[in-house]
């Protein structure tokens, strides 16, 4: 809870915007709701039903059914739970990579160069092309998606953390602390961590929506989650064949669900960024 405490003390609520804590509670609540609802949902709701093929939204199926008679609402929920799980895992891994590389770059000159070259390489390709390459290299599937997302989203956060760590390390109070005989771990714990923690949390929250959107994109082109598992990308890819028949609801619900989740994190990230951003100037 320390991270949230630190965040709640930050200069939140910019220009009439809501407090980071409220938006964070909203985003986290939404994720928990999706995970809980998908876990509690009875298995048969996902079944194929030959009696209800291609139904428009109605009382029996609130969001309609697809060409195999599967309930779109139930499938969307299961797919969102999958997106959220993969997104959380990949965003956590990416944040960890950013933290390690950012700190390494801040502390050693050689490491700084290496991280700089790595950053140039990762940013040298269009992001989605790099995602395809990594997903291909790791054999597609859910593992491939997690690797692809985790290995490509760290540069921005790593740069922020490097800058932050360098600023703190060069500050007068760290010099004073050293002169007073404080050990390196003590300084890392009491001076560095409080500065980096909010940035790490904000970075994670900002990576998450990209992670789930990119997961959906990879699954959409057939390099992501295996087609037999429910996923937003696969559902949208299937829906391409169905919208020609006028079954728009097959495409509308999964995409809208994904946008709502991504948006709640994007807006949470927006206020976090405002709260943790260094004053004007540094990007």
């Amino acid at each position, binding site marked *: 809870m320390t991270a949230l405490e630190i965040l709640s003390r930050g200069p939140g609520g910019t220009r009439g915007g809501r407090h980071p804590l409220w938006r964070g509670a909203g985003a986290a609540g939404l994720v928990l709701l999706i995970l809980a609802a998908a876990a509690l949902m009875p298995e048969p709701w996902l079944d194929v039903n030959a009696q209800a093929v291609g139904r428009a939204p109605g009382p029996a199926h609130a969001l309609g059914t697809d060409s195999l008679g599967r309930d779109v609402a139930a499938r969307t929920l299961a797919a969102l739970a999958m997106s959220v799980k993969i997104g959380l895992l990949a965003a956590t891994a990416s944040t960890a990579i950013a933290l390690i590389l950012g700190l390494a770059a801040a502390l050693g000159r050689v490491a700084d160069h290496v991280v700089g070259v790595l950053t140039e390489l990762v940013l040298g390709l269009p992001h989605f092309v790099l995602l395809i390459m990594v997903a*291909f290299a790791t054999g597609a599937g859910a593992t491939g998606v997690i690797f692809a997302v985790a290995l490509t989203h760290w540069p921005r956060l790593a740069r922020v953390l490097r800058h932050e760590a360098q600023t703190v390390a060069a500050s007068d109070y760290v010099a004073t602390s050293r002169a007073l005989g404080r050990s390196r771990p003590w300084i890392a714990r009491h001076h560095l961590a409080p500065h980096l923690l909010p940035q790490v949390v904000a970075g994670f929250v900002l990576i998450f929506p990209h992670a789930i959107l990119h997961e959906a994109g990879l699954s959409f082109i057939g390099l992501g989650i295996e087609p037999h598992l429910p996923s937003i990308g696969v559902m949208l890819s299937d829906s391409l064949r169905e919208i020609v028949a006028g079954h728009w609801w097959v495409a509308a619900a999964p995409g809208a669900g994904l946008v709502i989740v991504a948006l709640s994190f994007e807006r949470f990230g927006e206020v976090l960024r405002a709260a943790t951003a260094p004053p004007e100037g540094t990007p």
Partner: protein
Amino acid sequence: MSWLRPLLLGRLVRLAWLLPLAAIGLFTLISLAPIDPVQAYVGDRTSLVGPEQREAIAAAWGLDRPATERFGHWLGDVLRGDLGRSLTYDMPVAEVIARRFPASLVLIAGAFAVSFVVGTTLGIAAAAARGGPADRIIRTLAVALSASPGFWIAILLIALFAVGLGWLPSCCAAPPGLTAGEAGWSDRARHLVLPVATLSVVGTAPLILHTRQRLVAFLDSPAALHLRAHGLSWQRIAFGAGLRHALGPALTLHLAGAGELFGGSVLAETVFAWPGLGQATVRAATGADAPLLMGIGLTTLLFVFCGNLLADIAARLADPRLRQGPA
């Protein structure tokens, strides 16, 4: 233009070390793939191809030799201008790229122009009405756009304009049965509308927010206050002096993000079956076509590089102060 030469030289030096490292990185990534290229090539014909033939195919592609040797071999070919042969299209990789990249460039150029005009206009409009309802609507729109998958918007556009209203075609670059060359101008333009609209979504949102932020800063400046004191409305100031103020940085940002348009075009081309390089990227990845993937990787690397270089040039054209600094 004395600043241009050092800038170009500096960027060429960077390319000189970036390109080989990227080639090694890409080759490593693609060699890691657990997909057996021979199996991917054989595909449905498994029962027709015996183990000796498989070994023969592997030997013909040099797969039986170690990775470093294959890399050296491949690099030697690339330096002689030979990118290898695509397995899925059964023609030289260079030819696949040369045939398909123009179609992608048409999409990308269209989307670049549309998102620039829409993004800056909305950004300026939002700044002119800052704090008001129009500002709030535009900002909400920008955030919503940045959280929406482009390919989903594409599907909705198809559902509405192609299936529901029947105004526009939902697929391909030309009517069925015609190649893009045979189709008339109006037909080709009609086929462009939805893909370009889809791809425009990628670059619009950051542009709106950036332009708005920059212009709000300008409108709070003494210069803008001076104009206001002379009786100009905020709208006039925003779209007059403010436009000139915001356009250069916006163009720089937009050019730097142009490489991402290629990423977006991979998805847009998949939805619309657009015969460009994005579609080829998906086919190469799902068909384990390593030579084509390498070729596309290097091509897009150069594409991103050019976008960044143009952005650097645009930034210096727009702001003379930058010309003094190091390249």
